[in-house]
């Protein structure tokens, strides 16, 4: 493109002021990070978060409220930050470093080790943490607070950007609510209930397995069981969510009910990550990679969870209702019935590669189950230094090795460092698209048993590409729309932005009957009716 920056992209004086305001707020955090001791932490924390939020709000109002309602994508591919320019890369590096420190070196954020008081950034958050849960802050509390602030401030921005679009506004209000209430305030308040003989694990109700990969770890299950009726209620609710509530909602509304209305990862992606949605790769190669990757992560996650559970069922069986082998056999039977059902009832909808993939991943999983039933995993020792280039010198039992590796590789590196740190490079949903096992499960269901689809409006598509460009999941929406074919894709999170930006009103997210949901066509509506009949029937 031209060397001269198009002028409209230069921001106004007010926007510069707003940016400066936000940066001052950030500066306070950075100063705290470098151990500047603020006299009244509560006040300075409030000022800092206030300035960051206020700056974002001012900036957004200036950006959108002086213009008529409509699509506001002018210059996205010119701006350095949103087109993988220097600013984009710089932001990517900063975020990545932040995540690495957060996950692996929290002491640099000021986390007090071995009972020592917090210092630096984390100490700055102590007053707020004490207010909510009665405890001092941890690195996770700091992260949770900033995360929530980001969703709220950028959620506001997003709502202004789409102020003509009620679907976008309601959806954003929803993620803002679920993040603030369910992921942040309620769990912190619940921690207040804890006493010496009663303790609930930190529990974000909406965060289910397998996204929450430690949902069924022994310490957690034990805590729930020990926490009397309430604990048992939450444990059972967790299982019901996975097997009943989620499938039901996904059947009715598609996986969007979770991914773009409730989920925290999705919430951040849709708000703070919105400026990067166009960066996702739409190519066929990326799609192929995505399918291998995301299904592998799912298998990995199932295998890890099963390994962890079956191990403690093995040596602690009298404490639980299940024994190890009953558990393994029921999982095996469940998966077999599920797969057989899909292959039989949905055989027409599966192409060869889906068929082969499903069988392959199934066989792999079952092989692991058999392996687990014959060996006591807690007796197999693994030295982590072989897998971590010597960084981690510990020796683990096989199950906790799997668990640790999953937590490290998937939980931290993939979903955190790559998933969010790489927003400005890979787009805002790299984790949701390539990694999230929860999205995989709901996606399989969305593709096969859901009333959700994106309907294409007859022959109206002009192949402009705005839809594909805005799809954060890297779906080539246009490829379907220009054939007059509905979009029924497992990865679609139902954000609705493709529909919003379409200049010809071609796309509509809707829930309707399962019949005719998938409608491949040869000739589009509007042409000779006889020709359409002839060709579309073949």
């Amino acid at each position: 493109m031209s060397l001269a920056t198009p002028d409209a992209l230069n921001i106004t004086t007010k926007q510069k002021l707003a940016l400066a305001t936000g940066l001052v707020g950030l500066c306070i955090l950075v100063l705290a990070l470098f151990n500047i001791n603020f006299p009244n932490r509560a006040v300075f924390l409030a000022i800092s978060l206030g300035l960051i939020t206020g700056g974002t709000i001012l900036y957004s109002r200036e950006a959108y409220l002086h213009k008529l309602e409509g699509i506001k994508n002018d210059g996205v591919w010119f701006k350095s930050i949103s087109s993988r320019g220097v600013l984009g890369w710089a932001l990517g590096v900063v975020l990545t470093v932040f995540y690495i420190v957060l996950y692996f070196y929290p002491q640099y954020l000021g986390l007090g080790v071995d009972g020592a008081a917090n210092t630096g950034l984390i100490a700055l958050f102590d007053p707020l943490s004490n207010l909510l849960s009665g405890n001092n802050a941890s690195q996770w509390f700091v992260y949770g607070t900033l995360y929530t602030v980001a969703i709220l401030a950028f959620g506001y921005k997003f709502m202004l950007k789409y102020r003509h679009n009620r679907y976008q506004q309601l959806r954003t209000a929803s993620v803002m609510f679920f993040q603030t209430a369910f992921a942040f305030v309620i769990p912190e308040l619940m921690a207040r209930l804890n006493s010496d003989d009663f303790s609930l694990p930190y529990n974000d109700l909406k965060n289910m397995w397998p996204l929450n990969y430690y949902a069924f770890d022994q310490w957690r299950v034990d805590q729930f069981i020990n926490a009397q009726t309430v604990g048992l209620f939450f444990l059972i609710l967790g299982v019901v969510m996975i097997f009943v509530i989620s499938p039901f909602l996904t059947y009715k509304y598609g996986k969007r009910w979770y991914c773009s209305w409730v989920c925290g990862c999705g919430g951040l992606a849709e708000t703070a990550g919105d400026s990067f949605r166009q960066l996702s790769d739409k190519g066929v190669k990326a799609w192929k990679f995505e399918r291998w990757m995301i299904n592998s992560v799912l298998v990995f996650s199932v295998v890890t969870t099963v390994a962890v559970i079956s191990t403690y069922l093995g040596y602690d069986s009298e404490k639980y209702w299940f024994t190890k082998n009953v558990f393994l056999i029921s999982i095996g039977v469940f998966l077999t019935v599920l797969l057989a059902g899909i292959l039989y009832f949905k055989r027409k909808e599966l192409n060869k590669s889906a068929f082969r993939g499903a069988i392959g991943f199934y066989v792999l999983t079952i092989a692991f189950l058999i392996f687990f039933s014959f060996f006591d995993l807690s007796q197999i020792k693994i030295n982590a230094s072989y897998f971590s280039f010597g960084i981690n010198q510990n020796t683990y039992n096989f199950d906790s090795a799997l668990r640790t590796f999953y937590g490290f590789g998937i939980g931290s590196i993939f979903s955190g460092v790559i998933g969010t740190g790489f927003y400005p490079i890979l787009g805002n949903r790299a984790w949701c698209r390539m990694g999230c096992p929860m999205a995989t499960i709901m996606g399989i269901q969305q593709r096969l048993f859901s009333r959700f689809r994106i309907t294409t409006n007859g022959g109206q598509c002009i192949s402009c590409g705005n839809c594909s460009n805005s799809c954060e999941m890297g779906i080539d929406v246009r490829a379907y729309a220009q054939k007059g074919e509905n979009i029924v894709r497992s990865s679609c999170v139902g954000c609705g932005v493709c529909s919003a930006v379409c200049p010809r009103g071609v796309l509509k997210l809707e829930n309707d009957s399962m019949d005719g949901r998938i409608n491949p066509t040869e000739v589009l509506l509007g042409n000779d009716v006889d020709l359409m009949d002839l060709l579309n029937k073949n």
Partner: protein
Amino acid sequence: MEHVVIIGNGISGVTVARHIRKNSDKKITIISGETDYFFSRTALMYIYMGHMKFEHTQPYENSFWKKNKIELKKGFVETIDTDTKTLQFAEGDSLQYDTLVLATGSKPNKFGWPGQDLKGVQGLYSKQDLDTLEENAPNNKACNRAVIVGGGLIGIEMAEMLNSRSIPVTFLVRENSFWNGVLPEGESAMINRHIKNHHIDLRLSTNLKEIKSDENGRVKSIVIAETDEEIACNVVGLTAGVSPNIAFLKTSNIETGRGILVNRKLETNIPNVYAIGDCAEQREGGIGERRPIEAVWYTGRMMGEALAQTICGNPTEYKPAHWFNSAKFLDIEYQTYGWVFSKPRENEAHFHWKHEDDTKCITVCYNTVDNTFLGINTFGIRMRHEVFDRWLTEKRDIDFVMQHLAQANFDPEFYKHFEKEILLAYTNKLQTA
């Protein structure tokens, strides 16, 4: 093996190629002097506005063509010898064909205005035009003002483009209301106001007299015919319609009128030579209410779909079904199904409803003798193609359509619905009429 050569890699040429490939393994070559790969012309504006990059406007990945054994050739065809079935390229080489499809599209109209070939004066049709605009009007420092001449769909797109870079725009429209040769009065008036709300200097009933040059042969101003007012500007956009791009055929035996003359099977006067898309003109006049030359995306595609059948041995006429079209005027989306003319014709009447926010309206046209629903224009409310297509085929009457309008709604979920309000207005109108 039969060699099908297609001149033009736009929607028409590409559609016919894809469908021939689906039905046969003939050798297929697509020629274009414009770009290496098919791109969506309708998306040119979004590149300039920074919504997309050029590569995003290409509907198929570059590997698609090889995978489907469709050969692409970049080059400009200078002459066609239909006796020897040879194409001669400006680059010097030549190519033999067995079957030839002309899908050469349009070019912007120029009406002989003084100064129309100056630097800084341009149309907006091709990728090259877009590159030129990028040079002429990169920002509002290099271009203090642009004048657009011609109030059609491309004109308003160009106004929106320049506006997105804060370049002041004066928009000269010959008619006394925007696009009112096509749009009924209420709609056209609403768009006038919308254009002005975007701070575009819209001048209705205004003609261009001349374009003045500076000492370097660059445009420095334009003069308005009616008032002799001179407006200083750095860019002039000529968007007074398009006409078939057929100049290179003048020396050939292929018969042309305003466009390349074809019959209903899209055959020209020469056997095995066909024409489709913007460049084709129906020899016997327009089909139904359609114009003899249909320069829209959809018709190009439909002609391509039909012609592929003929070329693959299943002779098929171009028989489009109910008319439909769409566009976007700055922030207001427009769709049309069936026929709504700017003024009701004999035995026709319009029902018009406009929302108080002045960004949504509909106009329904019906037959006053038997009340048959004839067509609808809708602004700011998305409607279902499939539903209107069915109602038109079923020849529903206007009452039915007004009562069932909700079935046709295609707006995103949770949008406010206006069907009740519309029905109320409709019933009231009947009572007072």
